[in-house]
């Protein structure tokens, strides 16, 4: 639904209560519309049908607007009732006014009942609380359609009067497709004649009409019978899949870049404390990279991501760098501006950059819909590396997730949006080394080292942060049961995740009794790391995300990544190795997998490489991954077969 755009730019509402619980009958036409929209037989998999989803926005020259949303939602299932019987309208108290024009439940016999006053509640937003944002002004109006039953239709209409989000400009992103079928949808935007509106419809088609009036031009987009998207684990954002409309008064990205840079004027400041701090951080560091990292790591660690600093236009307009440094907290825009200021003191040029992290950027129309702010640091003339000071535990020089993504530099001269150069999975590889021994009595002893680069390193540090001290030991004991039920950790050593200037490493010494098992006339064992137990990325993340045999939508993996495992398994001379699992290689872009087993002097040399050269795995790539998993599964089902003494 179109609530998305309301939330992202924080359009702000004030509400008006309905005074009483009104009852009545809807018109025959409306009843016909609802009935003919379909039911659970027509839409077997739908929890609800969006019968109507209409939005109308009237924009003024200063960028202020009045927006009306009107939706009719027919509930088909118990889950649909749970989802839609609560409607939320996020707003910020200082910027907007909202009026609820209609909030009623229409029964399938054509009677309706309006929502009683007691079921409309103005409250703070739960979602922002999860981000450490407790600003009382961030609010939502919650309308409970609690008596709605399966078969009923929720009818809700709101109007929102907003102050300008963009001064003298307008930009909007409307998503028309969601996880529910939409029968009719319409967007009307009324613009002053002297403002030009650029637009594009993506991921589908809409009927477009333009009507010129005396002072305003009216643009209309319409679509019918839009099919529902289906939920899939770790799917890409619905924004990348669904029918959407992007409109903007900005003609070029350069214009938007300039506009953004204007918001930063006066914010990239300094004071003696900041200068002193920067000098102390870079003291003795002659190498430019070291100086950049020193400043970056200070901000990552010491400036808390927190939103109680939210005030005027905070999503767009950052605080002064000196303010953020003094307060030691801020949102991404604040942390980026502080980093730019501190780098400037160190004589290093950097730029404020906007990026989308979990969905694609639509470059056709310059719109303000960016999720995140990061910093582009100039390492050579016009050559930038992208760093994210919001990430607390990023040790890398340049974030691998920015590879191949569009970035918009905010620049007073204006810059075009462009695609950052792609990184390979090699930048985010895990590295597991194991030296294992199996004694005469069949006991396994292994020394395992786990470390990683880029995204892999970030995951390891995040786990260490969340599970400090012995908690991590416990976690790994749990994970390593896949080597064998009963495997225990004898000794462990974990790096300190916050020491970003040091390589993060985990050293484990593990033990498993009766690793070689006697099965009748046979002695069997597994290759200890054959199941990639110590490889967090594969065993905990990728494996869990890829249990579906096939996918309809791309799998979002955040970053290209992979891992290497190298293990030597020395087997006591009391045993002879008679057979072992077959090596194999699978190389179908973007998947590369290699399992290699060699035996020499009663020692097994096991090497395993695994790489996914994409951050978004499309269904055809997923099929390849699944092909590779079949080979891996076969390998895992195989054993090392041994011979002992006189037995054969």
């Amino acid at each position, binding site marked *: 639904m179109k609530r998305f755009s309301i939330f992202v730019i924080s359009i702000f509402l004030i509400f008006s209560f309905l005074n009483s619980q009104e009852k009545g009958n809807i018109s025959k036409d409306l009843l016909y519309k609802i009935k003919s929209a379909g039911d659970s037989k027509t839409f077997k998999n739908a929890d609800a049908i969006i019968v109507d989803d209409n939005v109308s926005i009237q924009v003024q020259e200063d960028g202020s607007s009045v927006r009306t949303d009107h939706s009719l939602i027919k509930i088909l299932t118990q889950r649909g009732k749970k989802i839609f019987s609560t409607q939320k309208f996020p707003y910020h108290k200082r910027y907007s006014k909202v009026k609820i024009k209609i909030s009623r439940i229409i029964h399938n016999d054509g009677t309706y009942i309006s929502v009683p006053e007691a079921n409309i*509640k103005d409250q703070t937003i739960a979602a922002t609380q999860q981000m450490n944002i407790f600003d009382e002004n961030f609010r939502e109006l919650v309308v409970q359609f609690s008596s709605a039953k399966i078969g009923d239709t929720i009818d809700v209409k709101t109007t929102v009067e907003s102050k300008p989000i963009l001064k003298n400009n307008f930009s909007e992103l409307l998503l028309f497709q969601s996880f529910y079928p939409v029968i009719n949808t319409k967007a009307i935007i009324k613009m002053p004649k002297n403002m030009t509106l650029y637009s594009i419809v993506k991921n589908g088609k809409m009927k477009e009409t333009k009507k010129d009036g005396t002072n305003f031009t009216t643009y209309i987009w319409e679509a019918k019978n839009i099919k529902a998207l289906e939920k899939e684990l770790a799917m890409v954002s619905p924004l990348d899949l669904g029918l959407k409309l992007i409109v903007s008064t900005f003609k070029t990205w350069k214009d938007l870049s300039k506009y953004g840079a204007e918001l930063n004027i006066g914010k990239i400041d300094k004071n003696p404390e900041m200068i002193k701090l920067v000098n102390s951080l870079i003291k003795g560091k002659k190498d430019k990279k070291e100086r950049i990292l020193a400043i970056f790591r200070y901000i990552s660690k010491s400036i808390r991501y927190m939103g*109680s600093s939210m005030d005027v236009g905070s999503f767009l307009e950052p605080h002064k760098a000196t303010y953020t440094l003094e307060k030691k907290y801020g949102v991404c825009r604040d942390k980026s501006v502080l980093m730019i200021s501190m780098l400037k003191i160190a004589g290093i040029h950097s730029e404020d950059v906007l990026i989308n992290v979990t969905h694609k950027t639509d470059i056709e129309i310059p719109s303000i819909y960016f999720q995140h702010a990061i910093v582009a640091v100039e390492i050579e003339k016009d050559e930038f590396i992208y760093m994210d000071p919001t990430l607390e535990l990023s040790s890398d020089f340049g974030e691998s997730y920015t590879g191949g993504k569009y970035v918009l530099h905010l620049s007073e001269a204006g810059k075009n949006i462009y695609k950052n150069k792609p990184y390979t999975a090699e930048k985010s590889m895990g590295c597991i080394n194991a030296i294992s021994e199996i004694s005469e009595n069949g006991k396994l002893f292994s020394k395992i080292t786990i470390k990683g680069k880029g995204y892999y390193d970030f995951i390891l540090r995040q786990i260490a942060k969340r599970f*400090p001290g012995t908690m991590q030991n416990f976690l790994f004991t749990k994970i390593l049961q896949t080597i064998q039920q009963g495997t225990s950790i004898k000794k462990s050593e974990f790096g300190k995740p916050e020491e970003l200037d040091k390589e993060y490493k985990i050293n484990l010494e593990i033990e498993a009794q009766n690793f070689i098992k006697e099965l009748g006339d046979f002695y069997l064992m597994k290759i200890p790391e054959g199941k990639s137990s110590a490889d967090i990325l594969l065993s905990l993340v990728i494996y869990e995300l890829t249990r*579906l045999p096939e996918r309809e939508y791309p799998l979002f993996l955040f970053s290209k990544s992979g891992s290497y495992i190298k293990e030597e398994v020395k087997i006591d001379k009391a045993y002879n190795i008679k057979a072992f699992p077959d090596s194999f290689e699978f190389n179908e872009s973007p998947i590369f997998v290699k399992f290699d087993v060699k035996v020499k002097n009663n020692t097994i040399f096991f090497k395993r490489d695994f790489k996914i050269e994409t951050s978004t795995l499309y269904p055809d790539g997923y099929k390849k991954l699944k092909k590779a998993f079949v080979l*891996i*599964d076969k390998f895992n*089902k195989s054993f090392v*077969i041994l011979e002992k003494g006189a037995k054969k």
Partner: protein
Amino acid sequence: MKKRIIFSILFICLINFAFSIDDNLIKKFKDSQTMIPPDSYTYIIYSSKTLTLNQDKKILKNEVIDFYKIINSAGRDMFSDYRIRFKEEKDKINVLEALTLKKDLLKIPVENKGINTITPAELKGASLYSNILDKVYSFQNVEPYDAVFMNYVKETPVIDGFIASKVLFQGENPKLSMNFRVKIPQNLSLFNKLSSKKIEQKIDKHENYKIYTWEMKDIPKFKIEEYRPPSNYLSPYLIFSTSKDWSNIVTKLYNEFHKKTKPDSLIKKKARELIKEEKSDKGKILKIYKFITKDIKKITLPLGQDGYYPHKASKVLKNFYGDIRDKSSLLISLLKAAKFKPFPVFVPDAKTPEKELVVMDQFKTIFVAVPLNGELLFINPNGENEQLGYVNIPEGTEGLAIKQGKPEWVKINYYKNIKNRACTEIKIEMLQNALYNADINVNLNGYFDKIAREGISLKSENEKEKFFSKSANVFSEGSKSISYTLSNLNDSNKNVKINHLIKGSTFFVKQGKVSILTLPEVPYFFADFPFRLSLKTRNYPLYFGKKFEVYEKWNLESDKNIKALYLPDNLNIDNEKYSFYLKAKTEANSIVIERSIKIKTLMLPISEYKKFKDIFDKFYGWKMKTLLFEEE
């Protein structure tokens, strides 16, 4: 008026004098630099609560000091926002000091914009409980190794001078010192019980007050451990109450529930509508149960936070939502309208409740009991995914029945033959080149039935299809789900049954002439053994929380004759707390394996863990699931 102002000023002075961050606390903070526990998020230097019941026994002041050091950045994320829950119209909050104590001892008070009053996330949209709010203090300046200092007073009205509580001294973070004080007028009695000698008790008299102080020092955090008993089993605790007689409170609760659940015309109409055409008593109860659990939205408000008295049943019916008190109220009222004789049962957080002292905060939920066919049928008003007659607590838990007359404790059992049992029968047809067909039948009851319903009942047909496709893939990589049938998950009277057909390849591997097959795990989370043990030794008993049985039967058939080279050894270990059973046998062209685990106790003592774990490791090790065979 003048008198009140003077009193307030004095009160504030006293509080400040008594509790503002002082040199002693600062010294403790400095000393704590050397004793930072590595696997905690915070280190609680000082925690103090003082309950003062005023002389007219109408107001209870709760004076709180929390002083804790943040140990790492995860601790900062979790503990730098301090929440005080309060009832807007009844409670008064007075925050005396809220500051960050930096490593260098600089004190930074919380800024005004870091102080916000918010609606608790779990109460969103529920206007009926809009009086319950959280005051949040965000300690923006806190960093690892800094400390948070919070000192506030909350005033709450009390009825008839009754105060009682259960106080746990141990938690998930270590504490240097914790004390709990109760100040009551001299003419009032306070009864208490301590679970541990480590809690020191002191009783003083001061002016017209008796002052009870309980203190414990150097309290370690709970050790991280899988399947640990709940904290109320492990922590040293104090229970106190001004009453030993349950009659008064039960009578009041009875009167309130009786008054609020008396069916009015709206309730009667709804009950008639719900049970029309139903002839059997169970059928009528089922209809009402379904309405309460599916159509009345559950609001997660912990029992007691808004008191124990319910709202009027018809009000809940009009709102279509309610917390556990209110859903109970509506359920009782509808059952009464349908001519049943239901009553509420307060359910404690332990199997054996504290009966000697009247302490209400030991109760975590409310069930409704209905006499049916000579038994008591217990109903969980929040049991959206439960078979009628099953409630998700250990059988035999004693609950407090709210009935007219003498207080009565009743044992809560599942109705009739319901047991926690998962039974899976898997028939595998082994074809050429390691291809296979699997026919899986699952029969679930009690706890397993509940988690199956929770997992799949709301899924659409497509999502169910995907779930079973995924399960086929979990069973063996690359396998396909051919078809599935599911019993009606909306029918709370019938247990969950599933039939699933799968086909695939590489069910076993051939190495040389030998075929090796390791039986996969049952591919549904709800039919598998719900515990995976990894720890070699334990610090605490192993907590199962329920008695249950998981049974699997595998029937592997081949179109050729099979020569078994190795079958898992038979196993039969049976004692009063658990049993493990495995039997493998071969016939002309088939191998049959039966495996089961029965847990007959809620908790296994530490001393018995090693033996259990050795059997468990053996039972779940691949050797007990691997077969070697040759096909002719």
